[in-house]
């Protein structure tokens, strides 16, 4: 990745983070912490890697993205808006009764959303289904999916993990957003789902661990995933919950709380 590309992605990531703050502030609720932690991954996928066309969001040959950690919808919406699927003006309507931006992603209502998600553990199964359909149809699209570290406490994540390895879904790449926090506290204090790398290795996955805020590392991991034959890849992305907004970083309280007016100004100042 050259310097110009990296700088462009950094700018886009800031724009998306501002969109997250805009949406959750306007809604007065929502999930900024886990949205900000997954932002750089979304930025990389939608502005560098994925074969997509906002003018043709249902193209059968497009790459797909499934936000299994659907509560990070503000990040997905801000990304889709920045990429041109709809006007960024809509971000202010997040979670409002007449909006197409539901609290969790709705594939029927929002252009660019590839799967309805939000109930944890379900999206990764659907991502496996989309990847399998690609194999069955001989299409060369790739499927990306983001799951939460807390989400990995759901048994269905591991049912899907078993399935993807058994069916050799090497067109599937899953990002595990390892920000270390869930609603009730540290993931290691609730019901510890770690170590993720050893678990996925035992499930016969290709496992890569990276800094989830470093575009070069994300890029290198995705190249390796694409080169891997016969196995799905999980990219364990070490991230910071609330990344980019000083008072939110690594604070469990910012999982599901919106910034007030004053906090909004501070966040926007930091992200400009």
């Amino acid at each position, binding site marked *: 990745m050259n310097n110009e590309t990296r700088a462009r992605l950094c700018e886009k990531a800031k724009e998306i983070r501002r969109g997250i703050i805009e949406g959750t502030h306007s809604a007065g609720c929502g999930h900024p912490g886990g949205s900000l932690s997954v932002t750089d991954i979304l930025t990389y996928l939608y502005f560098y890697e994925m074969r997509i066309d906002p003018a043709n969001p249902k193209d*059968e040959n497009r790459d*797909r993205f*499934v936000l299994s950690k659907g509560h990070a919808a503000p990040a997905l919406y801000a990304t889709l808006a920045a990429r041109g699927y709809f006007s960024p003006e809509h971000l202010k309507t997040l979670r409002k009764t007449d909006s197409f931006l539901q609290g969790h992603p*709705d*594939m*029927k209502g929002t252009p660019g959303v*590839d*799967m*309805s998600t*939000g*109930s944890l*553990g*379900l*999206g*990764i*199964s*659907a*991502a*496996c*289904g*989309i*990847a*399998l*359909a*690609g194999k*069955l*149809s001989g299409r060369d699209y790739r499927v990306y999916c983001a799951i939460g570290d807390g989400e990995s406490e759901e048994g*269905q994540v591991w*049912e*899907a993990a*078993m*399935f993807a390895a*058994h*069916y050799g879904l090497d067109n599937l790449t899953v990002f595990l957003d390892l920000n270390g926090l869930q609603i009730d506290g540290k993931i290691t204090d609730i019901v510890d789902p770690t170590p993720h790398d050893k678990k996925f290795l035992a499930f016969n996955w290709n496992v890569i661990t990276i800094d989830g805020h470093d575009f070069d590392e994300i890029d290198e991991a995705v190249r390796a995933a694409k080169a891997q034959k016969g196995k799905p890849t999980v990219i364990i992305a070490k991230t910071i919950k609330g990344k980019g907004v000083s008072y939110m970083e690594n604070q469990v309280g910012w999982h599901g709380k919106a910034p007030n007016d004053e906090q909004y100004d501070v966040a926007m100042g930091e992200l400009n």
Partner: protein
Amino acid sequence: MADKKATREAYGDTLVELGASVPELVVLDADLAEATKTCKFKAAYPDRFIDCGIAEGNMMGIAAGLAAAGKIPFASSFAMFAAGRAFEQVRNCIGYPHLNVKIGATHAGLTVGEDGATHQCNEDIALMRTIPGMTIVNPADCIEAAAAVKAAAAMQGPVYLRCGRFAVPNVTEGQPFEIGRGVTLRPGKDVTLVATGFMVHLALEAADILAEDGISARVIDIHTIKPIDRALLVKAAKETGAVVTAEEHSVIGGLGSAVCEVLSEECPVPMRRVGVEDKFGRSGKVPELLALYGLTAENIASKAKETLFMKK
């Protein structure tokens, strides 16, 4: 009515038949292919058969993803696991996005027999009925089951197809099949017997019993429980003035409830519901269980006489 065959057999056979003409059709199972009869499709089209192992929740998510990418998946398991275990996956991954997934649920109801209460799902219709946009078809025999599989494959949107383990006689020969349209199998003017699935042939027997007492019973087969044929039910209630429902399912939330909902709003008449009362099933031979739980022609006839008494 000589040859008896379980509707799950028709489910398996028809999937094979459709396999040739519907290239998008794929069949999923959760380690029950021999029982659900998807083993026939597996043998004919191994590349389009996906065993998901004993993980029904994941199977529904896989089916949703396949449908989102243009496939027509038939996800198969026992009713207990398809509708019960995987309810939330069906609701959120299939129902909410209205994806084109067909759920083939076999071994519904008490006629599972010896496996007992844990496997006898008497609640699946109730569960599936609450999901917006879900079509529910519960065929009476193999003729209807074959037609239902074809109709489900041909329509857009999620379908819950309910099949049984136990052999039933063919009673719908020559009848037209259309999703959402009930079938009047026998004319009658004194009372209407509205039955679904396994209970349809018993409703016909009940009509014979009533005829011996000079009572003319109309028999309606409601294979599609959702969307239900309101017009046919209201017409029958108006013309006969009494209705008995019969289902191999809890009397809570199934056909009986659905018919009560329609008629209480549009044409209230004396009614009785035959089905599994508010109880779990148990192990036993199917005929003995049917007798124990009142799923018999005699009970339907008896309940019909009660409604006639209420009319007076």
